C-alpha cells in the first residue's frame, strides 16, 4: 500500500560532501523502508560546483579558479553534467530539491523515462504556484518557453530512488562560464547571450525571487497536491545517522572526487559554411555519448526555439544514434531550416561529433 505520510527534512544548509553523502544514505534508507518517502531542500554552504558521477573533475571545472573564488567541488551520486550551485546573492539562489521514494511506491516508477516525468510533476506545480508555466522536456529538463529552469537527475540504490534537481531562482551565467569547462570558444557577450537564450530563472520570469523558507513551503505544498499525501516535518533516524557518519568519509576522500575518469572524453567545435549560413556545433563527448551540445550560427530555423529543444533532446545520446535522432526530431516537430535539407543537417551534427574523436 502507498505510504500517504511523507517526511520533510526541511532546509539542509551544509557543505557539498555532507549533502551528497546524506543523499546516498537517504536513498538507501527509504529504499529499505527504514524511513517513509522523504523530501528536502538543500543549500550549498560554502558554495559549490557539483559534477556528475561518471565525470572527470579536471575536464569539467577550472580547479584554480574555484580555489581562488572559495567555491567547493564535489562528485554527486547522480549522473549528468557539472552544475554551479551559487547565484549572484549566494547559494540560496540555487537551492537543490530532493524527492526520495521507494521504487515500489508506484508502478510507473519501474519505467525510467516515465518516472522522470512523473516525479517531476511537483516541480511543475511549484513553478505554477509562482506564476510560471513549465513543462517536462525530455530527457532531463523542466523548461518554460524552451528555456531550462530546472535540471533533473536520479540515483537508485537498494530499492530507493532519489529524484533531484535545482530551483533556478537567480543565476550568474558569467560565473558559470568562468568556472565550468564548457564547449565554448571564449567567455564573451555572445556566449553569455547564447546561454541566456537557453536558461532562465524565477527572477527573470516573474521579477522576484522567493526566500528560501518560502521555497520550502511551496515545495511541501506542491508535493501534497501532486501526490495526494501529507508532508510532516521530521529528522534523520538513528540508522541514517550511523550510516551518514560512515558514508561521509567516502565523500570527503580525494579518491571520490578525483579518482574517477571516463575511458574517453573530448570537446570539439565544428564550423561549416552551408547554403543556409554558417553553422557552429560545439560538442562534449564522454564514453561515446554526447554529453553536451550547442548549435549556433547565422542560419534560420523555424520555430527558433526548436534548436534548444533539439539540444536537450540529443544530450546523453550514444554518438552512433545521433543522426537518426536528429532526423526523428526534425520530422516529428515539423522543423524547417532555410536552404538546408534535414538529412544534410543531421549529417553535419554527426560529423561534428565524430570528427573530434581521438
Amino acid at each position: 500500500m502507498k505510504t500517504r505520510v511523507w517526511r520533510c527534512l526541511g532546509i539542509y544548509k551544509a557543505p557539498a560532501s555532507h549533502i551528497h553523502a546524506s543523499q546516498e544514505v537517504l536513498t538507501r534508507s527509504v529504499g529499505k523502508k527504514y524511513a517513509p518517502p522523504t523530501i528536502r531542500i538543500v543549500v550549498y554552504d560554502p558554495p559549490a560546483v557539483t559534477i556528475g558521477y561518471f565525470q572527470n573533475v579536471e575536464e569539467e571545472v577550472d580547479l584554480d579558479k574555484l580555489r581562488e573564488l572559495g567555491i567547493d567541488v564535489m562528485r554527486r551520486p547522480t549522473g549528468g553534467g557539472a552544475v554551479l550551485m551559487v547565484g549572484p546573492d549566494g547559494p540560496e539562489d540555487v537551492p537543490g530539491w530532493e524527492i526520495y521514494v521507494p521504487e515500489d511506491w508506484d508502478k510507473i516508477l519501474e519505467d525510467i523515462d516515465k518516472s522522470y516525468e512523473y516525479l517531476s510533476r511537483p516541480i511543475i506545480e511549484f513553478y505554477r504556484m509562482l506564476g510560471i508555466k513549465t513543462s517536462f522536456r525530455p530527457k532531463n529538463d523542466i523548461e518554460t518557453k524552451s528555456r531550462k529552469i530546472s535540471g533533473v537527475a536520479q540515483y537508485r540504490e537498494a530499492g530507493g530512488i532519489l529524484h533531484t534537481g535545482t530551483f533556478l531562482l537567480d543565476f550568474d551565467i558569467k560565473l558559470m562560464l568562468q568556472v565550468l569547462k564548457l564547449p565554448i570558444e571564449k567567455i564573451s557577450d555572445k556566449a553569455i547571450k547564447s546561454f541566456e537564450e537557453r536558461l532562465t530563472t524565477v527572477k527573470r520570469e516573474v521579477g522576484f525571487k522567493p526566500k528560501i523558507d518560502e521555497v520550502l513551503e511551496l515545495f511541501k505544498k506542491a508535493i501534497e497536491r501532486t501526490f495526494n499525501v501529507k508532508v510532516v516535518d521530521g529528522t534523520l533516524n538513528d540508522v541514517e545517522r550511523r550510516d551518514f557518519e560512515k558514508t561521509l568519509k567516502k565523500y570527503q576522500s580525494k579518491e571520490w572526487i578525483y579518482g574517477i575518469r571516463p575511458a574517453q572524453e573530448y570537446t570539439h567545435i565544428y564550423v561549416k559554411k552551408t547554403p543556409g549560413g554558417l553553422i557552429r556545433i560545439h560538442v562534449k563527448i564522454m564514453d561515446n555519448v554526447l554529453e553536451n551540445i550547442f548549435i549556433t550560427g547565422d542560419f534560420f530555423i523555424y520555430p527558433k526555439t526548436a534548436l534548444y529543444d533539439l539540444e536537450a533532446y540529443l544530450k546523453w545520446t550514444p554518438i552512433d544514434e545521433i543522426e537518426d535522432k536528429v532526423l526523428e526530431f526534425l520530422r516529428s516537430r515539423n522543423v524547417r531550416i532555410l536552404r538546408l535539407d534535414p538529412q544534410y543537417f543531421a549529417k553535419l551534427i554527426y560529423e561534428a561529433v565524430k570528427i573530434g574523436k581521438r
Partner: protein
Amino acid sequence: MSSELYLWKKGNTWAKVEADGSVKVGVIPDALKRYPRITSVRFTVQEGQSVKQGDKIVSIGAGKMTVALEAPVSGVVARLNTKVKTNPAIIKHDPLGEGWLMVIKPTNLEEDLKKLVRG
C-alpha cells in the same frame, strides 16, 4: 555444484556457481528492461577486495541516472570483466553472457544462496 542462476533481486544482480566453486555475477535481464541504454560502468570494488552480500559493487549509468548494483554473495573479488567498462552496451545486449560483471570467490555460499531466488 549447480550452474543454475540465482537472483539477488533487490540488488539487481544474478549469481551463477561455476564448476570451480567460484561465483560469476551479472545484471538481472529483467532489471535491464527498465533502462533504455547503459553508457557508463564503474566498479566500486577492486580485485582482491572482500565484499559482503548486499554491498555495492558496481554503478551503471545512463545520462543523468546512476544505479548502484549489489553483491549477491559474500566473498573475495577474483576478477573484474573490464570489457564492460570500455563497452557498457554489452551488459544490455548479453547480460547472461559477455556482459557479466565479476567473479567472486565465495566465503559463505550455502547461507547466502538461501537468501537468493532461483532464476
